[in-house]
């Protein structure tokens, strides 16, 4: 049977004390370069879903298939407090710190390019009472920037509306109308959208135009 020599006891005690410190060391402090897919997986997937379809339960929008220039532009706005910094913008305030997880412009571009590769999907209708025929008339104002097919226009920095949840578009239109979104002096495109949203006079008008937009998502 092994018997510890007296002279070994201090060494053993020292070893027990040192071991946890050794395990805490990390010799390689270098940060690896992450791909767009890896960045999406680590920062976006938890809320927007693996396929970028968003989740009603936590009110995150669909981002699948949104153009890279738009995603990049919005990420920059969130990162710099141009969007998602209003006290009443609950969802925007959640997105702002998430966008700041991206370390630099290269990571913003990489994840934006990845999001653009995700396939958009027609989303189920959740809003009741919308009149698509009446909404087609309201859409005449939107059409100038978002296009007759709702797929957006890069030159006008108008995003695609196709494949987006109706509840999300409803909430954003309400935010634009209330000045919760698009009010920042540096938010040029948001500032353009704000007066456009005012042409929808009430919730019914918003539901109508969203009912029409849902017919574009085919």
């Amino acid at each position: 049977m092994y018997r510890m020599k007296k002279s070994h006891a201090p060494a053993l005690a020292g070893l027990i004390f040192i071991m946890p410190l050794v395990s805490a060391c990390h010799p390689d402090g270098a940060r690896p370069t992450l791909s767009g897919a890896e960045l999406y997986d680590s920062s976006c997937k938890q809320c927007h879903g693996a396929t970028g379809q968003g989740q009603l339960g936590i009110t995150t929008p669909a981002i699948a298939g949104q153009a890279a220039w738009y995603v990049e532009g919005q990420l920059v706005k969130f990162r710099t407090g141009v969007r998602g910094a209003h006290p009443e913008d609950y969802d925007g305030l959640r997105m702002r710190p998430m966008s700041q997880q991206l370390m630099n412009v290269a990571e913003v571009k990489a994840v934006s390019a990845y999001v653009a590769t995700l396939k958009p999907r027609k989303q189920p209708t959740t809003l009741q009472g919308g009149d698509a025929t009446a909404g087609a008339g309201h859409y005449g104002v939107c059409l100038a920037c978002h296009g007759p097919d709702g797929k957006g226009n890069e030159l006008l920095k108008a995003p695609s509306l196709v494949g987006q949840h109706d509840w999300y578009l409803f909430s954003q239109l309400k935010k634009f109308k209330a000045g919760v979104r698009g009010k920042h002096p540096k938010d040029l495109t948001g500032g353009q959208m704000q007066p456009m949203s005012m042409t929808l006079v009430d919730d019914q008008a918003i539901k109508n135009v969203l009912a029409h937009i849902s017919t574009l998502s085919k």
Partner: protein
Amino acid sequence: MISKYVESASSFAGDIDHLIWLVTVIVGFWFFLAEGVLFYFILRYTAQDGVKGQYITGEDPKQKRWVAWPHYLTLLFDVWIIIAAITVWQHVKQAMPQADSTVRIIAQQWAWTFVHPGPDGKLDTPDDIKLVDELHVEKGKTYHFELQSRDVLHSFSVPVFRLKQDAIPGRTIRGWFKATMAGGFDIQCTEICGIGHALMPARILIENHEDQAAWVMSKSPAAAATGGTP
């Protein structure tokens, strides 16, 4: 001594520091004493050739003293700590001194919204000043706060105040503080609140009377209407 490492900027920070110091000294004393006795026994009674091990039943009063006396002393020190802790708890958490002003603190994933009273000095009026991640208070004034959460558990922590209070959805939790030092300091969430928990820092800006008054006026609706401030 703690304030040498983390500044002390509230009227009760010293009480908390004293309590932490008291617990550290008492627990530290017993820790090092116990470890010293333990290692002494390990070395003194290491197995030796020709010496047979002894089975201790714990019935000999001379041997039981090694357990009983520290036990009684530990209880005595526990009572000391409990009395000190309850005294501080009563002062910081139970007693609410008269407020000079009230602010509302709203936590959410992952930001803080601070609602300050405007020039009228009252909350829930049109001149309220709402700011994200920035709380302005006046040095020397006693503030009540109304802490709320929009979604999940959060915890409002101002390390320089030694203040920490959980925010619970559906409840308004009231507390108080009195800033004693001007400057800008960190506010943290100290309750894991989701994936962005580490990304919700904020700042508390403690100003003297003149600066605070100027700031409030600069944020008033009249100033905003004239384009005085964004």
